[in-house]
């Protein structure tokens, strides 16, 4: 007996299993980052007045702005790749997915540049509490990016075979992966001002 509602929606909830599952997962992610943001607020309050702002001046705002734009773009291409599947255009799906992956690589490269330039200037997580939370938050976010890349890479490569056999199931998978990816983008949308601009 197959597990029901993997592809078609359950009538009374209107959902497929994986949709509910991913949203629950995202809810837990909200709480994970909630814990970290809460730590940020707590440490900021405990630091001397204006210290967080001052320490934050070390960060590279133009690079981070660029990264924000890159991540937003990748979110759009991600949703476009899903829309392409909906329109039965597998080629376009591959293209958009490819761009999404490229964007994520770009994001990580820029992050790498940012990190190394900090290290060159003798700035480490242990320098002060701002840098500590900065590296923790962006590092954890970076791990989420890498996780997303693995999933997206799989869905673009070996996983896409499913399109031939079960197109609908595959489209759903892309939607789920997309939800995760947009969430990672969403986290960054908050990280960016909180860390770089305030």
């Amino acid at each position, binding site marked *: 007996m197959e597990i029901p509602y993997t592809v078609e929606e359950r009538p009374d909830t209107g959902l497929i299993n994986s949709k509910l599952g991913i949203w629950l997962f995202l*809810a837990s992610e*909200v709480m994970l980052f909630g814990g970290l943001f809460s730590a940020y*607020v*707590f440490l900021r309050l405990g630091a001397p007045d204006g210290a967080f702002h001052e320490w934050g001046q070390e960060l590279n705002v133009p690079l981070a*702005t660029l990264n924000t734009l890159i991540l937003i773009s990748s979110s759009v291409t*991600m949703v476009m790749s899903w829309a392409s599947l909906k329109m039965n255009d597998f080629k376009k799906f591959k293209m958009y997915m490819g761009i999404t992956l490229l964007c994520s690589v770009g994001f990580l490269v820029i992050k790498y540049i940012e990190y190394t330039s900090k290290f060159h200037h003798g700035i480490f997580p242990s320098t002060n509490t701002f840098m500590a939370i900065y590296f923790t938050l962006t590092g954890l976010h970076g791990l989420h990016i890498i996780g997303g890349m693995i999933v997206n890479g799989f869905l673009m490569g070996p996983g896409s075979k499913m399109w031939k056999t079960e197109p609908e199931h595959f489209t759903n998978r892309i939607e789920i992966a997309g939800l995760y990816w*947009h969430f990672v983008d*969403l986290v960054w*949308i908050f990280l*960016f001002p909180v860390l770089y601009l305030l």
Partner: protein
Amino acid sequence: MSDHSMDDIKSHVKVYMLVFASLAVLTVVTVAASYMDLSSGEAIFLALIIATIKGSLVASYFMHLISEKALITWILMITFVFFFILMFIPTIAFFDWVNIS
């Protein structure tokens, strides 16, 4: 969302592009605002407002929350209640401490 017709999707795509544009603009706005001479309270308020708008755009359109099933909305609402509890109660506690100096 298996019940979408082709045209539906096409109109969605337009929306995605609009959202993309607004996100880009808002990013520039928030960076620009940070170079303005605001008091730290105002700056925080403004930056968080903009981030919230951007976040809601992503959530509503890219993540289709705007047309999502009630159950999911409920789960998220509960999550946000807990999120705010987690954010604010420690903060209030931070001030409500017998820590005289």
